[in-house]
């Protein structure tokens, strides 16, 4: 009876042609795990094409793979023992397909690394070993294969064990075993070999069952990247559900949670289920959904954590260790996207500390990182994101880099050069925020509106203020609670201590914008629609305001385009009589 409920993913890696696919093919054949007739079918195919039979053909299913006798892409194969169900990921060993090897290895809990005893340790034997360490795979068993070609020599086996143990130590891996095998002959694959009386350790099969399952990450701090926010109102469902997969930790109904980078806080009202018994707690690995007691603004890209646990790091510059897989080298004159958890932000390469040859572990300093190289770098993100340092919490401490449409690299976050000051201030402000006796939801119901910040901008000489006042009047007349806050009102009051009049000073300008946004934040918390005006707002200003407000702001440009303008929600002509109406419609103020 097959009642076991445990499972494990295993990857098999190593240099090209060292026998990975043969090991797995042999394992499947010797444990009667193949579909009936499969072995005969492959033998027949080899006979028809006058090719020698290969166990590897059981996995190398693609025409090109069989024609070239190599594995091109990772194959998933299903295998089970009394103890568990396995998915074995057979990786290619050719350097050209390193991205496929990483695709497979990143899913594995344990790895088998194959070295050909006849050929010895080769470039990718080492590179793959190093990558396993970067991917955080701790259980590695090394199979020294093709011992039939070296007369089952204990001496040769011992010397490989010695040399490779040394390399792995330098790469930060401690192998849990070495096994001498011959995949072609079936020695020490599924059954103990008679040809190597000098060896008494595991066979490949018994090693698999001896790998231990990674314990669930329930004891670590709670982390859930917000994947989406659902509200299926059109189907009559009024729940607002924050959806995501719990990366680590546990969460219960009633727990205080906080969303980073904004730092907004609320309490878990419910854990939602469909066709499953209602539950009051979830833990790592669950794709779940929660509702909150206060309707704060949360969006994809935020990281949910518990208020009484270790907070994540929020920063816009990060130190990383990465591998590059893109066809084009990774360099500092291009804009990329960084994806971590559910967040996606534009980024640039700021600095390469060194480039590492993952096979020789030699470090060099170069201006760019080429395909299949590993490097230590600093990345500059266009806005702050929340994450963990990989050594604290691996699952929220890693990222990928997208170049044009392709995932072209990935790695782990090793630290931060700065501390993302504004985002941190905002998080602290939200943490310390004193809630009044009336909630924002109640205010929204009373006023019949959602608070919103509308930023009206344009060239220096554009007539922003007239539009702003007309908009304020119209909204007020139609029953909305609205306030026009001119930047002048802030400049000479709230900003009196920093106003120098040097408009080109970027730091001073940032501080003005920050204070303007902080003031607007108080007004939106009071439930108001706030209209702001400022000249020639750029993308950085918009990001800054959104960081402070934790919400999207609605941007309108009056009149002609200007240099360095951001993407606007709306652009209207100067003197357009319909400007007010257009803004009200586009900003969806009456929904």
């Amino acid at each position, binding site marked *: 009876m097959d009642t076991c409920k445990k499972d494990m993913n295993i990857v098999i890696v190593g240099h090209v042609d060292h026998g990975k696919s043969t090991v797995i093919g042999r394992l499947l054949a010797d444990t009667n795990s193949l579909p009936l007739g499969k072995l005969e079918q492959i033998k027949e195919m080899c006979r028809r094409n006058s090719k020698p039979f290969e166990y590897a053909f059981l996995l190398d299913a693609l025409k090109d793979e069989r024609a070239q006798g190599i594995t091109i892409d990772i194959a998933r194969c299903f295998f089970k023992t009394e103890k568990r169900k396995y998915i074995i990921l057979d990786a290619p060993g050719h350097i050209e397909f390193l991205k496929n090897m990483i695709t497979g290895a990143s899913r594995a809990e344990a790895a088998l690394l194959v070295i050909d005893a006849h050929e010895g340790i080769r470039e990718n034997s080492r590179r793959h070993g190093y990558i396993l360490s970067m991917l955080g795979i701790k259980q590695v068993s090394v199979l020294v294969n093709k011992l039939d070609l070296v007369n089952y020599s204990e001496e040769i086996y011992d010397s490989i064990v010695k040399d490779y143990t040394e390399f792995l130590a330098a790469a930060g891996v401690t192998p849990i075993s070495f096994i001498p095998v011959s995949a072609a002959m079936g020695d020490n694959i599924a059954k103990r070999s008679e040809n190597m009386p000098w060896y008494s350790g595991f066979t490949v099969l018994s090693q698999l069952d001896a790998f231990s399952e990674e314990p669930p990450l329930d004891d670590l701090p709670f982390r859930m990247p917000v994947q989406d926010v659902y509200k299926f109102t059109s189907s009559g469902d009024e*729940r607002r559900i924050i959806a995501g997969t719990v990366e680590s930790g546990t969460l219960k109904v009633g727990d205080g949670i906080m969303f980073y980078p904004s730092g907004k806080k609320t309490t878990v009202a419910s854990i939602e289920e469909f066709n499953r018994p209602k539950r009051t707690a979830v833990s790592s690995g669950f794709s779940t959904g929660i509702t909150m007691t206060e309707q704060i603004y949360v969006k994809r890209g935020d990281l949910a954590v518990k208020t009484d646990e270790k907070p994540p790091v929020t920063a816009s510059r990060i130190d990383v260790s990465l591998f590059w897989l893109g066809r084009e080298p990774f360099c500092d004159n291009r804009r990329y996207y960084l994806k971590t958890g559910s967040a996606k932000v534009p980024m640039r390469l700021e600095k390469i500390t060194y480039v590492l040859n993952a096979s020789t572990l030699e470090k060099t300093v170069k201006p760019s990182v080429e395909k299949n190289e590993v490097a230590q770098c600093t990345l500059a993100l266009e806005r702050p994101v929340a994450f963990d340092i990989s050594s604290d919490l691996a699952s929220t401490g890693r990222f990928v880099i997208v170049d044009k449409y*392709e995932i072209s690299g990935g790695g782990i976050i090793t630290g931060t050069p700065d501390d993302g000051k504004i985002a941190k201030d905002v998080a602290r402000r939200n943490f310390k925020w004193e809630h009044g006796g009336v909630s924002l939801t109640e205010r929204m119901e009373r006023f019949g509106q959602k608070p919103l910040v509308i930023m009206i901008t344009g060239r220096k000489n554009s007539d922003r203020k007239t539009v702003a006042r007309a908009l304020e009047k119209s909204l007020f007349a139609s029953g909305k609670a609205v306030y026009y806050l001119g930047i002048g009102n802030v400049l000479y009051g709230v900003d009196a201590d920093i106003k120098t009049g040097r408009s080109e000073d970027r730091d001073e300008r940032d501080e003005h914008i920050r204070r303007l946004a902080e003031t607007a934040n108080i007004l939106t918390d009071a439930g108001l629609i706030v209209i702001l005006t400022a000249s020639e707002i750029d993308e950085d200003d918009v990001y800054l305001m959104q960081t402070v407000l934790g919400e999207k702001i609605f941007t309108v440009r009056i009149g002609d385009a200007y240099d360095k303008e951001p993407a606007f929600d709306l652009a209207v002509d100067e003197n357009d009589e319909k400007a007010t109406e257009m803004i009200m419609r586009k900003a969806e103020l009456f929904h």
Partner: protein
Amino acid sequence: MDHLDRLENRSIHILREAYSQFKNLCMLWSIGKDSTVLLCLARKAFYGHVPFPLVHIDTHYKIPEMIGYRDRLAKEWKLDMIYGENREALEKKLTFPDGNATRIECCKNLKTEALKNTLSGEWPRYRLNHAAGKYEKDANTEPYTGVIVGIRADEEGSRSKERYFSPRDKNNDWDIGDQPPEFWGQYKTDFAPGTHIRIHPLLDWTELDVWEYIKREGVPVVSLYFDQGDGKRYRSLGCWPCTNPVESDAKDLDGIIEELRSGKFANIAERSGRAQDKEDGGGLEELRKDGYM
């Protein structure tokens, strides 16, 4: 968390990722057990709603019971149901049962071509009007850029090499020699205009997992999967001229699960009843490169 929980939660993560990243998303529903499990996973992921259309390619050679079952569930679960077809090939009788095409050519005509042109919106799509209770020509002809498909890696060789998010180019072709990397739950969700992405949430499931899940969750499946008393049942559902029932007396879910765990099918491949897989070696790989599921 047991094995089925792990599979379920990973699949839900993938479905949600697809929904958040693709504006024009649809799910292919072949009415078979796998895509019906996928449909149930979607209802779980989105709390009882299925927020994208379900697309069925009607070859008109499906076993009639399947279409009845499709429309019954579509109404009951308020699904946004769409079907497409290769009307021209059907009218000109360019099919295997008509004797005018090989099995592989027939699959290309009735499935691959119909699928390609239904997804791109070039051929008419028929959408279920729930109020009127019938299908009407759909006014929306925008191409789907994300297509969720219920294939499994254990079905055959080329599927064992698939990605969860797998890009298809302008001609629907699959570049199997150069697939994008995919790790740590980060998938290929950026794509060039004119191309689309196939999304495969069930890759890690085996046939046995699917049946065990059907039993655990009470997923409704067509009765063709069970022996109705003549000692035969379908193990895989396709078009009737090319799908043969297998000898089996499994009358219920327990019977099927037993047969797969340790009984007569424990070591026999599921698609062994599908004739088009055998016609020439690597036939399915070639069909799939051209856009077959």
